[in-house]
């Protein structure tokens, strides 16, 4: 089955950007800002519906960074200073772990526009994966980052179970730190199996679909271990991954092919994406892989909304053509 969806935070629309800037300057009040967020959310949901995406997100327009709802809502976590978000000219606020982390209430329910997600569509939620959360936090409390990773994985499970009860059908765990290794050559196998254990804590036996989305780095570096991770799908950033390397493995999981570049504004050529996708699908033995998703390589928030919108059309177009060919 070939589907398509988005993989992260969407860019704010021009109108919303103006509203947030005006809010910062005291020229717009909370109510007006909220209205601007609602309008933009409706717009980005509508774009996903009109391009017939398989799963719908609310666009995560309020998320200041991938961790922020966790940094703000978990007890034991304090909000830290700005740090660079991998190799981007974008920054996040470091979660500082100052005590035992606890989930007192749903972490993302409040920040998510559930009321605007259409009842007859499949809802997707996106959360930070255990390894990335632990790596990018400043740990002042636990013995080491491994302990933090497992503590967080437990909290993540509670959150995912809560989301399933709210009606979400799909959860993506974003895990850029797992593959972003500009200096180290590759990860040790036992470290990868520990990460697999933490993922088990988070998602094993969860009734909704799960995906571990990697980006900003070469997915082939975590093979073959990643094939045993307890998730339904694995997400691959094809702008960082040497896809010739993927061909050496047989996948028994679904894959999310990050074929559209969220960090470049050039709108992709649909023909080329279809060709590359076909080649990968055939080589990794995707007859066994029950599902293939065509998606952006990471959060589209690195682009202005207009370009992101054009790219969603390319994603949907490529997915449609592949569906026809693989029927």
């Amino acid at each position, binding site marked *: 089955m070939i589907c398509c969806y988005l993989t992260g935070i969407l*860019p*704010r629309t*021009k109108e919303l*950007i103006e509203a*947030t*800037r005006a*809010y*910062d300057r005291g020229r717009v009040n909370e109510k007006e800002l909220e209205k601007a967020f609602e309008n933009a959310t409706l717009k980005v949901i509508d774009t996903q519906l009109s391009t017939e995406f398989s799963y719908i997100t609310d666009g995560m327009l309020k998320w*200041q*960074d991938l961790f922020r709802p966790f940094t703000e809502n978990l007890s034991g976590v304090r909000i830290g200073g*700005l740090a*660079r978000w991998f*190799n*981007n*000219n*974008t*920054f*996040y*606020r470091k979660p500082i772990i100052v005590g035992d982390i606890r989930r007192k209430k749903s972490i993302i329910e409040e920040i998510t526009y559930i009321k605007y997600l259409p009842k007859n569509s499949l809802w997707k939620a996106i959360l930070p994966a255990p390894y990335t959360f632990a790596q990018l936090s400043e740990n002042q409390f636990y013995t080491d980052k491994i302990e933090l990773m497992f503590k967080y994985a437990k909290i993540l499970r509670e959150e995912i179970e809560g989301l399933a009860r709210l009606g979400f059908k799909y959860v993506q765990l974003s895990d850029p730190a797992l593959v972003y290794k*500009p*200096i180290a050559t590759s990860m040790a196998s036992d470290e990868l199996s520990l990460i697999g254990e933490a993922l088990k804590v988070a998602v094993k036996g969860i009734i909704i679909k799960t995906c571990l989305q990697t980006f900003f780095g070469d997915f082939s570096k975590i093979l073959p271990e990643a094939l045993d991770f307890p998730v339904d799908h694995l997400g691959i950033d*094809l*702008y*960082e*991954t*040497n*896809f*010739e390397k993927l061909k050496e493995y047989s996948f028994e999981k679904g894959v999310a092919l990050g074929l559209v*570049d969220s960090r*470049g*504004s*050039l709108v992709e*050529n649909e023909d*080329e994406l279809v060709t*590359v996708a076909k080649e990968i699908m055939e080589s990794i033995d995707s007859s066994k892989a029950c599902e293939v998703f065509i998606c952006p390589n990471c959060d589209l*928030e*690195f*682009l*202005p*909304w*207009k*370009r992101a919108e054009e790219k969603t059309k390319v994603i949907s177009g490529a997915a449609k053509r592949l569906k026809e060919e693989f029927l």
Partner: protein
Amino acid sequence: MNKLFPTQEIGSLAKPRWRVKGYRGKPLSKEEITEAVDWGRKLGIEDLDELIKLLSETDSGDRKRAILEWSAKYAIRFFESAGLDVVFAGEQWRSEMYEHVIRKTTGFKFLGRVKCFDYRYFNKAACIDKPKYVGSLYLDEFLFAKENTEKELKVPFTGPYTLVDWTFNEFYEKRLSGEFRNFKKRKLEAKREFLFDLIKEVIRPEISKLVDVGAKWIQIDEPAATTNSTDEEMELFVESFNETVKGFNCTFSLHNCYSNYKVLAKHACKLRNCSQLALEFANRDSRQAGIGDPRTGYKEIELFEDYGFRGNYGLGVIDVHTNSVEPPELVRDRILHVVKMIGDPSRIYVSTDCGLRTRTWETSFQKLENMVLGSELAKRALK
């Protein structure tokens, strides 16, 4: 420079309200005009009546230019009055380090704002054609500064690697789209082509003009230098710096800030014709006085030394992101600590971490005065 511990600011200074509003042709309040007059008096600026008259006039092309000149003059006097040895125009002439260059060059189109963090954004351009030099970037600013000071001048110059890293690369990626199946390789190759075209077509012609009219020292600002810390990208950065400065009869230095110095240190000794690395350390350091243990922020100097960098350091001793003013004794201890580490005091230029554009003029002035006092104290301590 013959003097021990020469002092310098990195580049930018906040733009006063009369500069911002005046340039845009907006009316100024009495308070804003008073602010201009008060600082003018403090800095010993002559003919203030002319400025007041100008600020009350309606908008015109001449007025814009005149306001740039006044604000540049203020900035030069500001640095001189604080006692700096090396000065410039506080980047009053520029809208911002990125937009200033992109808007003055053809081949680019601004696509709109993208998120930087929280509710902060930056206006990002795409390269849509081969970049072309159509007019000078910094020449007028330099000529004006040269006319208006006797001090040594340093021209801050936004580096090509940063310009490329902060710009979408549509033109070159499109051009290579048929040639590479490997998307990663394609992007890197497109980046390389963009970078070296920009250097050849825009950056070097501008440097050439500056050198022709007497620029002796150009500081290449590359905040993005270590954003992509793979060896491959770092080598590209080094190559771009070397190509930028190649063959000019001029002194060059590199400013890089809020970056990964472990990565930069490894590659810094390969930078050719780079007389100085201006780096930030103060913001990483403790505020406790003393040499040795309290100087936690300066430990990475050791890496630069170990990897064989033997040029000068523009040593950041003033944190530009705090309002608290460093006492001269703290500045002194930071300098003396590094003297002890590298053994040669003549390799130190005393600097702010970065440009002071986010601080008020009051705070900036106090910080610079104390930086100068601290350098004097360090000199005395060595005698």
